Each structure stands twice: as structure tokens, then as C-alpha cells.
């Protein structure tokens, strides 16, 4: 983004400087609306032509669950007349195990792998984790930005990503307009995505049973979904030390919204234990009990309200934000995020960060399916649709090198703990630890330089 250089070339030096800072604010508001993949403004004084921003991330969950090593880069080229092109590139290498959705049992359980080619076992008492999760994700973004008139900033972009079992293609556009002596910026953005889901072995028929190894008769090939996002925002300079932003976002998803790998245990209505299979286990293996693939509605509408304030206190900066989200799956969530940037000398800073998140469960969230009752039309035991709280706590240290480049290292812990609604617990489920709590370590090193 050409934000910092946004001064009009024929202006006087002082007004040009003012215009630059206005543009920084304007551009930041646009950045905020564009979400990910748009670089921050660069130092106005140096007027660099290139901006390179790169980071290495390690994300690791305990208990042999998901591990991600990720390289992200954003390269920005600045042109004349405050136009700029940003290209973003991400590679993720993912491994580890993820909860299958089945419940714990007092006996060992076996499951057919998503590919349908083999089976795996889970010891008695353990949370069923599918350990076949392994993927590489490559994502590309491109974003063009230019002034539109004297007070406007127009931005258009595209994004694409590819995983073994997923393909994403998206377009987005955003316009921001400054008013009121450039103290107020109104912006509007739209993003459309068309994604295709290409599950290993094909997408299973919703609510059909997990079949024996080699039997793929319930698989339906690839699926797709479309997502539209609309964001309206206002950012307002309140005082010399305080700037605020309020965004309203609307998101509509339409198509295949299931997780093709998640199942639910079909349980006895009295004991709450998984029903055993009804036929002898074939030589190649298969599920030890009865498990049904999940089914979610094929539409979802989300609304969210996001507000953020940045407040300067004698050089220290408080960054406070709150988001409320509600959707027609009956999930409500609240997120509070607090960062405090504390300069140490003129070249470095410490930034503690705390985030609190809480969500209620989707109306179709079920720990398991009761075989004594009629099957619901929609059901998922995905822990991410359950009722849980999450806390992130971390610390970042940033410094400027002698050559003027920026480096930072942050270490954060993320923890989720959830509860299954009491009225969903049947028989033996009552005494068990049913919710797959999560603990993760996040380490990120970032490096940024301009030329």
C-alpha cells in the first residue's frame, strides 16, 4: 500500500507531510477493512520503492494434535501517484491428529480412515483422534491500490489457495473516503469466494454410516461452496492520542459447509455407549462401532460488529478491541483483545497481549446421536461448533536493527476449554471428559525491510 507516500507531488513540503499522515490513517482504515494480506504503511520519510515483510510461524497443539510450520511474505511495490501493488505468499506445512468427532469409550475403538483404504485404532478411554491429517497449503494474494479523487482510496484484490483437498478463489474490492478534515473515514468492501472441497476418498453422504475398509459406496466426489462478505466501517480520530474504528460485517456462505471427515457416535439411549457394529469385522478392517458422518445446513449467515480503539499514553500504546458475532446457526460469540505496546529505549518495545473468546454452541451441535430417538436433520460434534471459552496470552519483543530494519519475536499460548450441555449427556457419558480441550503454542518471528 502506497499509504505513506501518499502526498500529492506538487504540494508544499509541510502540507505534503500532513497529507501523508492523513493517508496513513486512511490507508490503515482500508487495511482494516481488507483484513488479511495488506501491508501496513511504511515510513514516509524514506520513500522506499519496495517493502518486504516476512514471517516464520510455528503453531503446535499438545497431545500430538495439529502442528503447523508456516512461511508468510508480503512484498509491496510502490509506484508513482501513490499507486501500489502487494503480493502475498504463504506456505503451510500441517501434520498431526485432529478429533474425529466420535466419543470416548471404555474399550478400544477402530475407525476406517477418510481415504477408505485402511483403519486405525484408539485405545480404551482415549479421545478418538484421526492421525491421518497431513497437508501442505499454498496461498497467494494480490492487491492493487490507488487514490480515487482527492479523498478516496480504492483497492481491488484477489486471493487463491490450494491444499490437497481444498481450492479457494476469491475477489475483493474496497473503497474508503475521508471526510471532516480527514478525521472521519467511511469505507465499504465486498469479497466473494468460490471454493471447492475435494475430500480424500470423496465427500461422504451426510448422516451415512462409516463403512468398512474398501467400501466407498457412500462417497459423492467433490463439493463446492460460495462465500460473500460485506464490510462497512467508520474510523474516527477522536483526539491527538485516540483513534477508533467500528465495523459491521455480513457474511453469507452457501453450499457444502460440512466437515467431510467428522463423524458422530450413534449411542445406546440408556448407557450412552457407542452401538457395536452389527456384522463381523472383515479381514481388511472397519469401524468397531456405528459412526455417522456429520451434516450441517447448507447456508450460514453471520453478522458481526467490531470496534477497536488505539490510545497513546506518553508513547505507550493501548490497542483494545471487541467483537460480537451472531449467526443463524445460533452461535453467539464475544471476543476481547488487548495489546499494550511499551517502548524500551528508542529502538525496541515489549508488547503483552491477552485475548478472551467465548462462544455458544450451534443449534445442531450434538456430542453423540441417540439411537432410541429419531435422527435430527443436522448434527455435528465438531468441537469448534460447541460451547467453549478460549484464552490467548502472549508477549512480543520487537526491535530495529542498525540498518533500520524491523524484527520481532512473539510467543503466545492459546487454550480452549469447553463443556457439553448437560441435557446432551446420556448414561455413562456423564462421568467422562467429553470435550477435547486444546492447548497450543504459537511462536512467530517477523522481519521487515524497505528498499
Amino acid at each position: 500500500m502506497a499509504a505513506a507516500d501518499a502526498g500529492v507531488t506538487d504540494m508544499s513540503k509541510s502540507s505534503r507531510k500532513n497529507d501523508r499522515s492523513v493517508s496513513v490513517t486512511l490507508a490503515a482504515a482500508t487495511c482494516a477493512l481488507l483484513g488479511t494480506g495488506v501491508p501496513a504503511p511504511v515510513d514516509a520519510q524514506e520513500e522506499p520503492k519496495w517493502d518486504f515483510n516476512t514471517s516464520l510461524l510455528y503453531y503446535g497443539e499438545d497431545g500430538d494434535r495439529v502442528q503447523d510450520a508456516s512461511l508468510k511474505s508480503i512484498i509491496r511495490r510502490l509506484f508513482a501517484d501513490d499507486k501500489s501493488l502487494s503480493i502475498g505468499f504463504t506456505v503451510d506445512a500441517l501434520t498431526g491428529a485432529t478429533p474425529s468427532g466420535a466419543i470416548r469409550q471404555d474399550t478400544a475403538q477402530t475407525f476406517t480412515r477418510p481415504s477408505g483404504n485402511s483403519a486405525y485404532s484408539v485405545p480404551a478411554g482415549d479421545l478418538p483422534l484421526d492421525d491421518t491429517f497431513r497437508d501442505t497449503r499454498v496461498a497467494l494474494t494480490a492487491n492493487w491500490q490507488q487514490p480515487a479523487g482527492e479523498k478516496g482510496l480504492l483497492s481491488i484484490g484477489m486471493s487463491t489457495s490450494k491444499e490437497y483437498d481444498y481450492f479457494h478463489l476469491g475477489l475483493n474490492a474496497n473503497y474508503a473516503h475521508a471526510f471532516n478534515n480527514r478525521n472521519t473515514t467511511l469505507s465499504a468492501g465486498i469479497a466473494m469466494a468460490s471454493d471447492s472441497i475435494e475430500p480424500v476418498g470423496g465427500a461422504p453422504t451426510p448422516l451415512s454410516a462409516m463403512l468398512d475398509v474398501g467400501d466407498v459406496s457412500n462417497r459423492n466426489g467433490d463439493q463446492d461452496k460460495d462465500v460473500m462478505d460485506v464490510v462497512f466501517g467508520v474510523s474516527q480520530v477522536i483526539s491527538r492520542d485516540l483513534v477508533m474504528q467500528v465495523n459491521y460485517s455480513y457474511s453469507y456462505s452457501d453450499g457444502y459447509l460440512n466437515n467431510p471427515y467428522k463423524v458422530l457416535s450413534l449411542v445406546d439411549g440408556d448407557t450412552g455407549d457407542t452401538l457395536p457394529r452389527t456384522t463381523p469385522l472383515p479381514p481388511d478392517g472397519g469401524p468397531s462401532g456405528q459412526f455417522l458422518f456429520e451434516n450441517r445446513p447448507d447456508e450460514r449467515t453471520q453478522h458481526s460488529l467490531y470496534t477497536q480503539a488505539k490510545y497513546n499514553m506518553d508513547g505507550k500504546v493501548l490497542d483494545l478491541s471487541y467483537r460480537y458475532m451472531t449467526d443463524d446457526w445460533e452461535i453467539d460469540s464475544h471476543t476481547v483483545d488487548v495489546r499494550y505496546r511499551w517502548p524500551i529505549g528508542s529502538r525496541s518495545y515489549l508488547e503483552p497481549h491477552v485475548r478472551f473468546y467465548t462462544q455458544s454452541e450451534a443449534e445442531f451441535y450434538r456430542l453423540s446421536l441417540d439411537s432410541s430417538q429419531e435422527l435430527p436433520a443436522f448434527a455435528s460434534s465438531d468441537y469448534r461448533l460447541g460451547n467453549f471459552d478460549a484464552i490467548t496470552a502472549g508477549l512480543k519483543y520487537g526491535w530495529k536493527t542498525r540498518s533500520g530494519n524491523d524484527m520481532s519475536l512473539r510467543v503466545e499460548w492459546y487454550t480452549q476449554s469447553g463443556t457439553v450441555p448437560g441435557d446432551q449427556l446420556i448414561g455413562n457419558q456423564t462421568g467422562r471428559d467429553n470435550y477435547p480441550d486444546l492447548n497450543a503454542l504459537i511462536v512467530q518471528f517477523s522481519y521487515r525491510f524497505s528498499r
Partner: protein
Amino acid sequence: MMKMRILSAVLLLAVCAGCSSMGVEPWERDVLAREDMQLITDPLEAATDDHIYFSKEASSGGRGFGGGGCGCN
């Protein structure tokens, strides 16, 4: 949903109505122009966080578009 729309409209109007009397003069923008006062200070970190929370929680976006482009949810 309707409630949410009305709430957003009222908030937007309230914010806008208050706007004209708020703000600073162009020569008072020294602090606001600082990199650490931008709404998104570190875009790579913001993108990383959006991606992590998109994959682990049922909410996404707010700050910007709703993330996505990932089979992780």
C-alpha cells in the same frame, strides 16, 4: 438479525453525528501518524491470527473480511 441491523445502524449514525465535532487539525497528527498508532500495526501478525482463529473457532473476520480460503474449518 433485525436487532443486529438496527443496532449497527444506530451505532453508525451515533458515531457519524459525533464526528463533526471530533478530530484534530492537520498539524496535530504527529502521534496518529506513528506506525504504532495504526489500526493494524503488523499485517502479517494480523493475518496469522485471523487464520489461526478461523481454523479453531466458529467466528471469523470483524476486523476485515472473514478469512477463509482454507479447508481447516
